[in-house]
């Protein structure tokens, strides 16, 4: 009791925390420092996510592997065996699995703008915290999934006697680009969904379109030359080529296009962050 009293009584008001609550007008500062102050929350949210996701499921964490493996089998049968799409001399299943891992991270990053806000509706209507914590939680969980699936990929490389080159050190960068592009897209979607709910439907079509506009199930060599520039403006095209180059020994990505699309993705993310900041406190009125 004494300790309790003591701990409560040592408190003096500081003016360092003045908060001004006003209607959102125009663009305000991102205030990433506040996000940093909430890093413990981010840690616990990720921990909650990982700890509770597979409770009361028969297969538990195996689900992490089932998702990409299932897609791999499906695409191998349809695009590798039936449609016989070229895979540049690499076994088709490895070829597509290698692309599916970053694609899943990208896909999660896109969804991270809206899904976690909906599933944590109770939370965001009861307590303030930087709403960006929720998308980031989702992305970090997704990276945990990625690392587990990546171990399987390494196993496949060994099995098929494929040796990665020095480019493997760039894998984290390629992954980061997928996240920047995905989060940028996801946060823009979130900003629009706040106003127009049915945009949620459209966004899932856009992502599916983007998947076929990226070399997930085929090699980008089959893309006609006149679309080369447009095609490679899509950061994911370069990310997937980078992955295959580094891990499967496919031809290297176009460094110039990689640079341009990275720049585009960064512009997208920064503008999305500002827009998200502007609408984040209206989210609760909508969800």
């Amino acid at each position, binding site marked *: 009791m004494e*300790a*309790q*009293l003591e*701990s*409560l*009584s040592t*408190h003096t*008001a*500081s*003016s360092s*925390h*003045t*908060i*001004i*609550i*006003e*209607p*959102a007008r125009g663009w305000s500062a991102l205030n990433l420092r506040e996000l940093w102050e*909430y890093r*413990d*929350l981010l*840690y*616990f*949210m990720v921990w*909650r996510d990982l*700890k*509770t996701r597979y*409770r*009361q499921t028969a297969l538990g964490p195996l689900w992490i592997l089932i998702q990409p493996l299932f897609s791999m089998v499906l695409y191998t049968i349809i695009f590798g065996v039936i449609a016989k799409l070229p895979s540049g001399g690499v076994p088709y299943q490895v070829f597509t699995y290698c692309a599916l891992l970053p694609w899943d991270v990208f896909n999660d990053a896109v969804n991270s703008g809206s899904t976690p806000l909906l599933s944590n509706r109770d*939370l*965001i*209507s*009861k*307590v*303030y*915290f930087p709403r960006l914590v929720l998308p980031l939680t989702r992305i970090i969980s997704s990276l945990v999934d990625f690392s587990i699936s990546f171990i399987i990929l390494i196993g496949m490389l060994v099995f098929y006697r494929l040796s990665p080159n020095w480019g493997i050190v760039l894998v984290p960068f390629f992954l980061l680009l997928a996240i920047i592009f995905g989060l940028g897209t996801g946060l823009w979607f979130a900003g629009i969904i706040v*106003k*127009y709910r049915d945009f949620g439907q459209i966004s899932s079509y856009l992502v599916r379109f983007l998947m076929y506009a990226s070399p997930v199930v085929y090699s980008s060599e089959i893309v006609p030359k006149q679309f080369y520039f447009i095609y490679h403006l899509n950061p994911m095209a370069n990310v997937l080529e980078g992955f295959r180059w580094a891990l499967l020994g496919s031809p290297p990505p176009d460094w110039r296009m990689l640079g341009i699309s990275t720049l585009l993705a960064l512009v997208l993310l920064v503008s999305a962050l500002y827009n998200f900041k502007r609408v984040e*406190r*209206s989210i*609760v*009125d909508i969800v």
Partner: protein
Amino acid sequence: MPRPMIEVENLGKRYRISVREKEPLTLWESISAPFKAPFSYLRKTLRAPTEAETLWAIRNVSFQVQEGEVLGVLGRNGAGKSTLLKTLARITDPTEGRAIMRGRVGSLLEVGTGFHAELTGRENIYLSGAILGMKKAEIDRKLDEIIAFAEIERFLDMPIKRYSSGMAVRLGFAVAAHLEPEILIVDEVLAVGDASFQRKCLGKMSQVANQGRTVLFVSHNVANMLRLCPRGILLERGQLVGEGAMEAIVKQYMSQVIETRQQIQFNDLSSAPGSDQVRLMGACVVDADGEPAVTVNIEEPIEIHYRYCTLKPNVRFRCAVNFSLHGTMAFTTMEPLEYVHAEPGVYEAHVVIPGNLLAEGDYSLDVSIFTSRGRKVRHLYLTEALGIHVYDPLSGNSARGDYTENYGGLLRPRLNWHKAFLGRDYSVPVALPQPLIEPTTANVSL
């Protein structure tokens, strides 16, 4: 004068509400409506909302809270209390105006925010603490205190889905109670848990207030408001309609709430309740200062006043009042004699209800005037004509003494208890104990 901790200036929050579409009139309209729907939807969302589509949950609300002050926010359901708190807690954006909060803000709008049923008690302490804005190190430091406060030591490593609802609530409050913000925003959360835990929470709340922290507190429980908040504001349909000492605010609030009426008045004698012999002009409940009493301190006496006029000479009747609590009659009091009103005219009758007789709660008062001797006449009987709210300020001078838990009964007279040590003779006494009652003589004159 130091700057106020909370400064609210003309705060307003507008919601867009959907207005019912007009029904299709013709077959063509009903066929084409679904095809036009996307366009009319777009048109509607893109243009600014019309007056009919908007609802100002709060508007033009301005007030200030000084450092160390505990401000109560009162208002009926839908008055805008929750919107005000959500705006100040930064959960939602205001539409106009602004608020300045000069300190770390912690909000407690729900008990057990962020609890996950699959996680254990210990894990949930960390999760909920982090969600409420605590750092991990801070939670580490307070973990033992939180566990002790929640009284869940034995169940700490069990998933909270196996907890009883009472345990989960205790745990939720315990986490929140150990937040250390400079400004604390609290909604209705004390309404949960059993009586003894509520008491503990109240104690914690007043402790928080005594440490010079600024608290904004919302509750429907008028008694808690009076205990915790010296000052209050009253909201009505989104507007600030009162600001001042909590007692005055509670009176104003109670007069809004229909069930509590401290006064009835009939200006038109021809339609006033009564018979051809007597008409009621008014009745009221007042406190010792002669002020209308709505919220009654349990320790203090109140008076019930009747004003009526007789229409004929030499009419004989008596006044009575029934006190009911939760729909059960607690007691009746009536004039012991049927007074003969010799001259027609205006009369007044009143009765004092002593302090420390009523229990805590909302009493409704039935007012009646009747004649029982000779020809029986019920001149008037007004069910639930008046209402009062009795609260215990827990000063220790009521029947409770220092007992703070659930206290039943329709009445709560404060009675004298005596006790004596009789030694170590454990044998059954032969004689009855000597009573302390002083003999009284009946003194009723007719």
